């Protein structure tokens, strides 16, 4: 059945099925994934992050799980912090570990998992005292390539904007940019820009909503206080206009649309309502989005028994569930039923109180010195 074939009645906006989404997220955290989820075996931490963030954004973490259960999850996440020759970071699961906790060539830390671990721990209100800061700085340094990009894991041949975003977010969380080379990283980001105004995953790749979010969020995370002139990292007015235009064209303008596609001439998909919607918010252009149509589409993607789907017919999953809610928060915070408690920071992709928790635990006071 084609998603486009469904003609929704949009006279009245659907509510957020919050209770169902909360029990679905809890079920994934506790009981996990069925055998069809095997290909997430090395990415359990990031699936966990989407579930925890779902509970956080719906303001349900306190009521949905006990303190001892949360303590168990915190311990599990800390058990994924591994130290080794590359410094210290987080892996997505203990699946490749032979004699943990020592990190080996085949059981390395991953940048994406490290980003997800820090946010998950903040959501769980962990004191973060177990974080190996020095090791993490070393790991960040080792992850950066000569062209400014960052490797997925230290011996990987994958280096794209996802990892740049994670590295920048981690530096921003630590309030310490001294272990990475900002100018070369910014040059790499700029080289991923395409003639359409979006960014591809790597240089010369097609403009893509996810990569565009990673590029824009990274550029806006660069601290103005760093020796590197932050302003030259940002977009020129012409680039700003071109990127805004490309992002707006990703929104499906048809009667059954409202959602965003990830690339030109592709179909709308709930996750791009976040990647493109948050990108527009970062550019200060959220007000020109048709937010009601976006909300209608996302609410129609809800599965009545919990979870949100990429469209109106697929199966729900934790990734689309969280990103759909995050998009609603950014673009329709006060108009949904029920409205969201708190705003989401589009750069870290975390709600305000979670962001504050992390800052209070990890930021040095006063702000650390600028990199030499």
């Amino acid at each position, binding site marked *: 059945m084609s998603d486009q074939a469904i003609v929704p009645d949009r006279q009245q906006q659907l509510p957020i099925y919050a209770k169902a989404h909360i029990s679905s997220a809890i079920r994934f*955290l506790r*009981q*996990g*994934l*069925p*055998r069809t989820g*095997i*290909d*997430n*075996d*090395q*990415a*359990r*931490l990031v699936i*966990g992050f989407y*579930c925890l963030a779902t509970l956080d954004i719906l303001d349900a973490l306190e009521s949905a799980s006990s303190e001892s*259960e949360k*303590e*168990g*999850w915190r*311990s*599990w*996440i800390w*058990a994924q912090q591994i130290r080794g020759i590359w410094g210290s970071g987080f892996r997505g699961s*203990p*699946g*490749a*570990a*032979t*004699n943990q906790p020592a990190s*080996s*060539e*085949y*059981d390395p830390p991953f940048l994406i998992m490290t980003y997800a671990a820090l946010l998950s721990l903040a959501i769980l209100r962990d004191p973060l005292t177990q974080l190996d800061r020095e090791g993490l700085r070393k790991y960040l340094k080792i992850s950066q390539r000569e062209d400014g990009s960052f490797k*997925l*894991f230290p*011996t*990987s*041949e*994958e280096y794209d904007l996802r990892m740049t975003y994670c590295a920048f977010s981690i530096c921003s969380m630590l309030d310490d940019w001294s272990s990475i080379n900002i100018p070369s990283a910014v040059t790499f980001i700029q080289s991923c820009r*395409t*003639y*359409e105004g979006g960014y*591809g*995953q*790597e*240089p*010369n*790749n*097609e*403009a*893509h909503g996810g990569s565009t979010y990673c590029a824009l969020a990274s550029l806006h995370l660069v601290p103005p206080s760093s020796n590197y002139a932050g302003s030259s990292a940002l977009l020129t007015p012409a680039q700003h206009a*071109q990127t805004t235009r*490309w992002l707006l*064209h990703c929104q499906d*303008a048809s009667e059954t649309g409202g959602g965003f596609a990830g*690339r*030109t*001439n*592709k179909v709308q998909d709930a996750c791009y309502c976040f990647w493109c919607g948050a990108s527009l918010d970062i550019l200060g252009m959220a007000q020109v989005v048709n937010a009601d149509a976006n909300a209608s589409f996302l609410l129609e993607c809800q599965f009545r028994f919990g979870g949100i789907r990429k469209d109106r017919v697929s199966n729900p999953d934790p990734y689309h569930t969280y990103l759909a809610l995050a998009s609603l928060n950014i673009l329709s915070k006060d108009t949904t039923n029920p409205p969201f408690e708190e705003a989401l920071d589009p750069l870290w992709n975390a709600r305000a109180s979670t962001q504050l928790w992390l800052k209070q635990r990890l930021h040095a006071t006063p702000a650390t010195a600028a990199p030499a």
Partner: protein
Amino acid sequence: MATETPPPPVLYADREEWRDITPLEQSDLENPLVPIFYPIEYKDAMDYFRGIVATKEHTDRVLELTEHIIRMNPAHYSVWQYRYSTLLALCSPEYLTKELDLMDELCLKFMKYYQVWSHRKLLLLLPESPSSTSGPNPLAHIIPTPSQELTYLSRVLATDAKNYHTWAYRQWVLTHYGDTHPGIWEYELIATDILIEDDVRNNSAWHHRFFICFASGAQNGVEERELAFVKSKISLSPNNLSAWNYLRGILDKLKIRYAELQTFVELYSGPRVGNRNEDEDEVEVYDLDNPRPSSNADLPCALAIEFLADIHEQEGDNEKAINVRALTSFDAFIPF
């Protein structure tokens, strides 16, 4: 009940030839986050994988075990990684040839996984990786040439013409080998011709065309050729964002004023000019600079109106730009 289920797989735990390996269970904690319900076949294979990694074994049976796991979970980086280092250690033309055949199968089958492309790239880079001896890598001659690789990628794109990983990999092959093998660029334009002919809204093909025409060094006459090409595609399907973005891309890249396209754009931004049916007897001259909309095109075209507004803006006439832009939000201009 038992007779209805398929016969259970023969586990490594029950196989004589694996008895020397001590299987290692995954050490999860009491309160695991997002546990996965592993089928017994996967759990058993992973226990032996961990056992192999612990003993640092790099023999041919590691290839068997890791292929088995990859077919169940193509996203396991560590398994791919261990397989790669085993291939390096074995340093055998026979195993490498088999591996390349296997990757032809798996990149098609699992094209949506980053890992298959990452492994393929590592194999292609093998001749450049330092070998144990100081001479050239003894396996170098087995690795496909860049043009063979591009031929394979066309096969993959024939099954999914918009797969992002396949396109990204193709762009990597071209940038990595383009200087040393300049001949590999030759077929690329025709490849995009075919894909755009097949689906004029295939933005991946349009993007690739821009990359080969404008991002990889200047070629003579490319500007005129590509402007004519994109205009002809707009005339066939005016409401095609890919083509308009391509047109804008060329103008931006070559710093051509949008106003130079005004005559062309105005054929699309208003109601149809003239009626072809009445002029049936006349032989229509195809104007390469300003091809007219095809007879079944939906006009006026919102993307042309947007372009016209941008012409006014570029020429400094903001009031006119605002007035024209306002037209695109009229329902009347949604294609009917």
